[in-house]
């Protein structure tokens, strides 16, 4: 039992990270139907910027704010200068653009911040908390707590604010949204900014646990994409659930099946799910209109 609990803790912590990244994918996908392969780089920017600010003697809270701001600016620039001009191009063209952007950002980070791994100090110590014979780090609770807060804040944003509703409307039908006077260009810009900020927050939260470096975004970005698709692209709930399923499956696979094949298990899972639910767990099953 304690064993199971330990796997679960591990899975939930990692899964929450995947969920936050997946949420970033979902947000951009919703507004623009673009899969942003540079999403992982926002996590990297968040983590690395905080580390470098701390190194420069800036107090932690300020460093975090600076990191989020930087990531947001990068996100906005990405939309404005890279995605916006190619708006009418084919899906894979835009995918390649975001891949190019991620290589560019990674390269830049490597030049500016170097290639070494860095550890961010945990926010509230690293004395493990024992629950039912299993242990969890305080930082994991931070990750989970922040995930919950972010999800709640996003729910409020999309359901209660005009801008949030505008983003939702744009995701359903861009032309119609434009007709009713929504500035869809602005919506796109904001969703990129928001998603970048989200990525940065995730990157900062997990840096004390997973360590951070210029290329930390590759794997996390990929896993976030898996989470988003698993849940059903464009569904916020889907991304969260997808991320948690992914994390927990990995942990359970490592614990109970084989640690060598634990990385393959999520992909087998996603293939199976897609075979039976071609639109992911929470994806909309639209009927084609001809």
């Amino acid at each position, binding site marked *: 039992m304690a064993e199971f609990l330990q796997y679960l803790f591990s899975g939930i912590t990692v899964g929450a990270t995947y969920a936050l990244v997946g949420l970033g994918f979902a947000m951009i996908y919703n507004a623009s139907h673009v899969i942003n392969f540079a999403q992982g780089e926002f996590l990297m920017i968040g983590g690395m910027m905080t580390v470098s600010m701390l190194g420069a003697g800036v107090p932690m809270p300020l460093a975090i704010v600076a990191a989020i701001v930087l990531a947001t600016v990068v996100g906005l620039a990405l939309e404005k200068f890279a995605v916006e001009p190619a708006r009418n191009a084919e899906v894979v063209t835009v995918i390649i653009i975001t891949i190019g952007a991620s290589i560019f950002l990674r390269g830049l980070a490597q030049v500016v911040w170097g290639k070494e791994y860095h550890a961010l100090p945990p926010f509230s110590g690293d004395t493990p908390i024992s629950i039912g014979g299993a242990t969890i780090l305080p930082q994991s609770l931070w990750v989970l707590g922040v995930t919950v807060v972010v999800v709640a804040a996003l729910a409020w944003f999309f359901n209660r604010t005009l801008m949030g509703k505008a983003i939702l409307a744009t995701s359903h039908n861009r032309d119609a949204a434009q007709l009713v006077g929504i500035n869809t260009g602005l919506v796109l810009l904001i969703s990129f900014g928001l998603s970048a900020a989200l990525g940065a927050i995730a990157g900062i939260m997990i840096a004390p646990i997973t360590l951070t470096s210029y290329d930390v975004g590759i794997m996390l970005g990929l896993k976030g994409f898996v989470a988003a698709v698993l849940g059903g692209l464009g569904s916020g709930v889907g991304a969260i659930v997808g991320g948690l399923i992914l994390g927990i499956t990995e942990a359970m696979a490592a614990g109970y099946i084989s640690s060598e094949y634990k990385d393959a298990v999520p992909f087998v899972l996603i293939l199976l799910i897609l075979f039976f639910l071609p639109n992911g767990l929470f994806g909309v099953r639209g*009927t*084609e*209109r*001809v």
Partner: protein
Amino acid sequence: MSLLRVEQLNKSFGGVHAVQDLSFEVDPGTIHSVIGPNGAGKTTLFNLVTGVYTPSSGNIFLDDQPTAGRPAHVLARLGMSRTFQNLQICMNMTALENVMVGRHLHLDRRFLPAMLRLPGIVRGDRDCRDKAAELMNFVGTGRYLDSDAASMPYGALKRLEIARALAAEPRLLLLDEPAAGLNANETAEIDVLIQKVAQTGVTVVLVEHDMKLVMNISDHILVLDYGKKLAEGTAEAVRHNPDVIAAYLGAA
């Protein structure tokens, strides 16, 4: 004997009954129109007949052969061809190639000969190209022979779809709102074109909003309302049917 027979056809999406208990027959060599207010289920009926949707229940027969639920490409093989309400032109191809796609079933579709470009393929394609060009002239889009489909005007694309459908040499041609979005002049031209097609012996089933067009050319009219059959008969009979008048006035 009827060419197309629909028996007690039903289709629902979730709780919405798009088509209910619908039965009708289409005689060969006629122009058969389906009309009805918006949302009456005309396009759904089309999609059911052409295999895009699978019926919830009921039967469809082409030449007494059951076809309900069979995929579109199999129906095409049985001699059924169609156009689409929202244009379905392949914008990544030229106009001529679009029509050539329509002749797919009449060509050698084997992979290996195609890959090795055996003489038969070359010959088949040359004939196909000529036939397609002929058809483009027939529907009146001859001047777009070498154009990219993406560069053609809307009205011409509507005809191009008809040419593509005809390229399959169908026995049954289903036209889904061929005049939608066209001006009066273009509509009149479509009117002529459909009659020209019918004269070649192709049976035409037509969904259309333009009453003038429908009344002008139809041999037989089926009126739908809320997925059910409201009336059926010749243009004259339908025009004076009180239910139809009520539905249209009510809808308007």
